[in-house]
């Protein structure tokens, strides 16, 4: 904006356009993704997918609820695992948040949340077997790591006037409960309830490894091409997620959490010897386990072992993971920006919004491997089905969060409508928040690349899964350690970018 007094030559000079750091960062990410796309294999090799896809479509329009004997119990157990896991994770996270400034605590939290719930479950399966505790811990541990981080950041950003106003001599604990916590309580509550929705999805997904939740039956039905049954299970799951705010009342949470542990079902006995064996034998690298520690052969074998794992598996695995993650991240962002208006009060009336909500619930609640399988049928094996599956799933999650956020934007009475409203008003005002959500999702997308073995994409997670299939737990732990380092690095980078761009973390709950 030049002042009226500005000399004419200033007005006539061509002003060099400068972009804000936010735009520059976004463009940089798009650029990286474009380069990755160049290296990624996204060829389409389809022959005749239509008979299988036709069977799926037929399943969707003829959902078969009749075969699902005891469906009530499946749902109850799915909810029970989510409740127990999230409650433990939230309480653990809340306690950890108080000591989050201590380096080792922060690092441990970053490490535990870098491991996908499914891998936690597979690790606990080795020690505890198919017991309820396996499922509960598989949710609780990574969630404690995530909650600790978000709670700590929320508490840090708490407005301090209330704290300053406290009389001199007020104890730390009183100060915490009467000044600091009340200010952020609503954020913590909102975040925890969002976490519960994630917990429900996690709980369902744990069924894939054998816990008695919805995923168990879904995987069975889907794996056998029993699409009517799979559709029925998915519809039930959609309804469960979509009606969450009606049955998950704040007043009832305590009651739910009290009852849930008794609904997890039984399991095999836990034997201490299995836990000891896992910790002291199984995860010791094979060369050390089988050789004498005093001979030099053992140590050179160990070096070979580590070198083989690193160069043959970890390194190519990291490359594939990186490619897939960066492309899927940008695709997720583009999709989220396209999808969020569907549920925003700024753009649509009640009925279209309802349809939008249903659409987003379906996208974000359909497990990625099912999406990936559908696209595998359509396009043949390549990175393309993985990219589309990951970005649809995550784009719907971020679209949902951004849509809700956009409702809070206050508009002038004479604000434009339609595309102009989107481009000139809403988008600029939600963009920072959108990026915050997206950067939070970055590491999540990276973790999710693990489960696409059906496509033959050799991500780090693919190699972990192979080592698990071979019951080579020493390799599993080695590869998981590398996965953790990789994830923590991305997390640190994401935090760095967010703080440089001053993106608020307070509502960053993706």
């Amino acid at each position, binding site marked *: 904006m030049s002042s009226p007094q500005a000399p004419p030559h200033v007005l006539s000079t061509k002003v060099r356009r400068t972009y804000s750091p936010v735009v520059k960062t976004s463009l940089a990410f798009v650029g990286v993704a474009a380069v990755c796309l160049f290296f990624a294999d996204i060829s389409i090799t389809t022959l005749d997918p239509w008979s299988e896809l036709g069977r799926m479509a037929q399943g969707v329009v003829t959902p078969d609820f009749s075969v699902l004997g005891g469906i009530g119990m499946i749902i109850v157990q799915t909810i029970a695992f989510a409740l127990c896991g999230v409650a433990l994770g939230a309480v653990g996270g809340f306690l950890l948040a108080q000591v989050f400034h201590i380096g080792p605590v922060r690092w441990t939290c970053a490490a535990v949340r870098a491991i996908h719930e499914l891998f936690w479950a597979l690790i606990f399966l*080795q020690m505890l077997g198919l*017991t309820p505790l396996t499922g509960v811990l598989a949710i609780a541990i990574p969630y404690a790591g995530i909650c600790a981080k978000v709670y700590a950041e929320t508490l840090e950003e708490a407005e301090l006037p209330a704290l300053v106003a406290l009389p001199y001599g007020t104890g730390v604990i009183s100060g915490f409960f009467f000044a600091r916590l009340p200010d952020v309580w609503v954020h913590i509550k909102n975040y925890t309830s969002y976490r519960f929705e994630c917990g429900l999805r996690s709980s369902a997904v744990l069924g894939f490894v054998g816990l008695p939740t919805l995923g168990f039956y879904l995987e069975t039905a889907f794996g*056998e091409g029993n699409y009517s049954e799979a559709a029925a299970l998915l519809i039930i799951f959609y309804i469960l997620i979509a009606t969450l705010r009606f049955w998950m009342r704040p007043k009832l949470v305590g009651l739910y*959490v*009290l009852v849930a542990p008794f609904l997890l079902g039984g399991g095999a006995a836990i034997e201490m010897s299995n836990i000891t064996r896992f910790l002291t034998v199984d995860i010791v690298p094979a060369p050390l386990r089988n050789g004498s520690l005093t001979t030099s052969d053992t140590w050179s074998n160990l070096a070979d072992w580590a070198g083989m794992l690193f160069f043959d598996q970890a390194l190519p695995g990291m490359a594939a993971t990186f490619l897939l993650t960066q492309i899927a991240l940008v695709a997720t962002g583009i999709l989220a920006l396209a999808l969020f208006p569907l549920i925003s009060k700024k753009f649509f009336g009640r009925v279209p919004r309802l349809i939008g909500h249903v659409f987003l619930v379906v996208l974000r609640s359909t497990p990625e491997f099912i999406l990936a399988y559908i696209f595998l049928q359509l396009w043949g094996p390549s990175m393309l089905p993985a990219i589309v599956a990951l970005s649809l799933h995550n784009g719907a999650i971020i679209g949902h969060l951004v849509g809700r956020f956009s409702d809070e934007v206050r508009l002038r009475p004479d604000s434009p409508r339609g595309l102009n409203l989107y481009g000139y008003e809403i988008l600029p005002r939600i963009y920072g928040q959108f990026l915050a959500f997206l950067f939070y999702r970055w590491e999540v997308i990276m973790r999710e690349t693990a489960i696409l073995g*059906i496509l*033959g994409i050799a991500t780090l997670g693919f190699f972990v899964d192979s080592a698990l299939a071979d*019951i080579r737990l020493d390799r599993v732990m080695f590869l998981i350690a590398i996965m953790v380092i990789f994830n923590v690095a991305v997390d640190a980078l994401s935090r760095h970018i967010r703080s440089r761009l001053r993106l608020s973390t307070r509502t960053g709950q993706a």
Partner: protein
Amino acid sequence: MNKLKILAFGAAIAFTATALPAQQVLAETFVFTAIPDENEARLRERFDKVAAYLTKTLGVETKYIPVKSYAAAVTAFRNNQVQLGWFGGLSGVRARHLVPGSEAIAQGFEDQAFETYFIAHASTGLKPSAEFPAEIEGKTFTFGSKGSTSGRLMPEYYVRQYFKSAPNSIFTKVGFSGNHSKTIALVQSGAYQVGAVNFKVWENEIKTGKIDPAKISVVWKTPPYPDYQWTIRGDVEKRWKPGFKAKVREALLNMKDPDLLASFPRKSFIPASNSDYKPILDVAKLIDLIN
């Protein structure tokens, strides 16, 4: 901060209650599992019948628990959460390797000479042949589960033997469908051009009409190898009574109910021993699937 207290209290209870049921050792129920190689609803139906039969014949409460992967079946056996397993060749070798004293006690009649079928989509133009189909080079290829004998171990062995090189460098894409039914579905739709499948599952799907011969056909059959077997832990003798192992073997070998046998599907069960699976162990070591 009442809610917080309730939540904390609830979480504490949640923790203790989930740990508790684990303490009650399931009296002396004899538990078995099976690798999830196909249709799980069918597996459950089949093995619940087997459980009822064993309960009656052994006079010991017997239960089947379903698992989701080959590795989970082996792990449950290793952790003594099941004492008997219906394993494939490779998973059985792994299970016995991890549990010293465990023993293969019976196999299906057909399991003495099991086969893997290489199947291909019609568009590949591949024709059935008695020789290894060298033309599969450069195609996309899907195995079944990573831990499967017929869907992974044996086909990978023959691919490596012929090409002297790993599947990754022979095929343009290598996938793991998860199970035999999915392998068939993926090759039938052309998502993958070639696949390797358990011949029993193939025959079964031909019978049930899930296969369209115009789209997909068998191009090569592997030489026969030993596959599925019942494997039992050595310490069952101590836990139940001396001679228990022999009793279980006898019960399995005497399983004559045609309905029950048809559900496997096997003609009958015959004695087996650990040494029957030496070829599988050797191949597994050769392609580095076992240490």
